[in-house]
């Protein structure tokens, strides 16, 4: 440690106070949070590979096996019979977003346990902005994973209309926001990293299987009316349908409304949960939990 630094060298740490943050400062903060998330993702190659391998296994193995078993009739947005691989691709995109959203939840719990979360929460920017930035960062990483998957799927012969790859972007963004907001809300409820397995059992698997990701809703209705009703109250159902229609340049308005509404709801709940004067973090204080 230097003990002989000159005053000139230390002049940069002269206390300076200035006015409120402007738009430029907010953008710098947002960029910093997004960049950090991207760098973390790039440094964790295993995370990238597993996020890519998971849907590819479903596409290459599961879909190939089930294409003969499960017939998909002509249902909107499809105008012809489609291969089962084509049918489940939007669901697999949703799966990537779902896992990624929950991964961001895991990352927040980890950050909280390791103390990294504190550096974010003691930033002078409003906490809602910090959480939204964190969510946007998570969504940016998720969307990159989805496009990596779509490229591999394209080479496998599973192709959407060319413009569909562009049209699907807003749907991926909104669905990603909803799932990241849900992940953030869940992270505020989890006290320890070990409890994350519960997320797998109670959120990811039921959310994924009780949705039209793998089979159309009409087939589910035929098989089990109860499961059909569960699918209808599952927000992930609407995320998958929003993505599916977007691939064909169409908007499923019900799905759009549900996904947008759930995004706002989950986000508001997460912001309240991370507010130290309200919400679940306050309860953590009461039990001596880490911030």
């Amino acid at each position: 440690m230097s003990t002989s630094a000159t005053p000139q060298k230390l002049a940069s740490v002269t206390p300076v106070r200035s006015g409120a943050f402007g738009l430029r400062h907010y953008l710098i903060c947002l960029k910093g949070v997004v960049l950090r998330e991207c760098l973390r993702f790039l440094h964790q190659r295993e995370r990238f590979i597993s996020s890519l391998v998971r849907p590819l296994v479903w596409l290459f193995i599961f879909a190939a096996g089930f294409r003969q078993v499960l017939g998909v009739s002509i249902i909107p947005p499809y105008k012809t019979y489609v291969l089962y691989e084509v049918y489940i691709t939007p669901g697999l995109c949703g799966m990537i977003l779902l896992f990624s959203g929950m991964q961001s939840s895991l990352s927040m719990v980890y950050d909280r346990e390791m103390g990294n979360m504190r550096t974010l929460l003691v930033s002078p920017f409003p906490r809602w902005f910090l959480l939204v930035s964190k969510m946007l960062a998570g969504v940016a990483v998720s969307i990159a994973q989805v496009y990596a998957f779509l490229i591999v799927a394209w080479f496998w012969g599973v192709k959407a209309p060319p413009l569909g790859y562009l049209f699907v972007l807003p749907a991926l963004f909104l669905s990603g926001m909803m799932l990241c907001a849900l992940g953030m809300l869940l992270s505020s409820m989890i006290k320890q990293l070990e409890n994350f397995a519960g997320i797998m059992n109670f959120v990811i698997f039921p959310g994924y299987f009780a949705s039209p990701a793998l089979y159309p809703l009409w087939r589910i209705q035929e098989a089990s009316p109860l499961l059909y009703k569960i699918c209808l109250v599952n927000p992930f159902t609407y995320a998958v349908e929003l993505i599916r229609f977007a691939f064909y340049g169409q908007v499923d308005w019900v799905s759009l409304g549900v996904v947008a509404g759930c995004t706002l709801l989950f986000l508001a709940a997460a912001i309240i949960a991370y507010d130290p004067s309200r919400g679940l973090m306050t309860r953590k204080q009461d039990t001596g939990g880490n911030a």
Partner: protein
Amino acid sequence: MIGVQHVRTGGPGNEVAALDVAGVSHSYGSKRALNNVSFSIAPATFTVLLGLNGAGKTTLFSLISHLYDTRHGSIRIFGHDIRRASGEALRCVGIVFQARTLDLDLSVYQNLSYHASLHGIGGREARQRIATLLETVDMQGREHDKARSLSGGQMRRIEIARALLHRPSLLLLDEATVGLDIQSRAGILATIRRLVHTEGIGVLWATHLIDEVEDGDHAVVLRQGNLVASGTVSDLIQASGTGSIRDAFSKLNRSGTAGIAEISP
């Protein structure tokens, strides 16, 4: 309680306190962690927050940094209430937490750059500040090292540089030298003390290591969540009737006997 008051808001010369803690209490469920704690520290002073493990130092830090909500009492940083104007208050504060908070997967530069962005500092300005501060903490040339590859002392230096990046007027350090060797401890302490004198930064240095305290320091002593003394170290020694801060601190922490808590000013 021995009460050698530091600068209060609106005190002589209308000087605003760097930190004003007034009647703060905090509980974890039914367990009281802080009980009606009040003290204030002046700008450009080195104040030691002394207390044994479990005295409430980290809880107090969590309240000052707004990680916890101050539900009883008030905390003001340069006049900004931490509840009502948390943004303004946090802009004045640099914090070094007790636990390591560097992102181990990122490089030194990436860690510092991330912190700069969290304070709205970007681009060339951030690069310049990082370069200067790395020199200040004697870590120049280590920008591209992974945080994971640094020793405990080096990580602490980076955390101090990070806490100074946004040019705070008040620096909070929670047990910043715990787990470090003697040389690293001395180096970090010397750097922080120098900042007080050359840059006019107020410092609240939480520790349970009595050898980090000097006679000219101000001290705030916590015991089991209660403030038992505050004032200059020499005044505390005198008031306790002991010959050293070590003995004064021991006396303060002796429960059930005539500690300083019972010695009125």
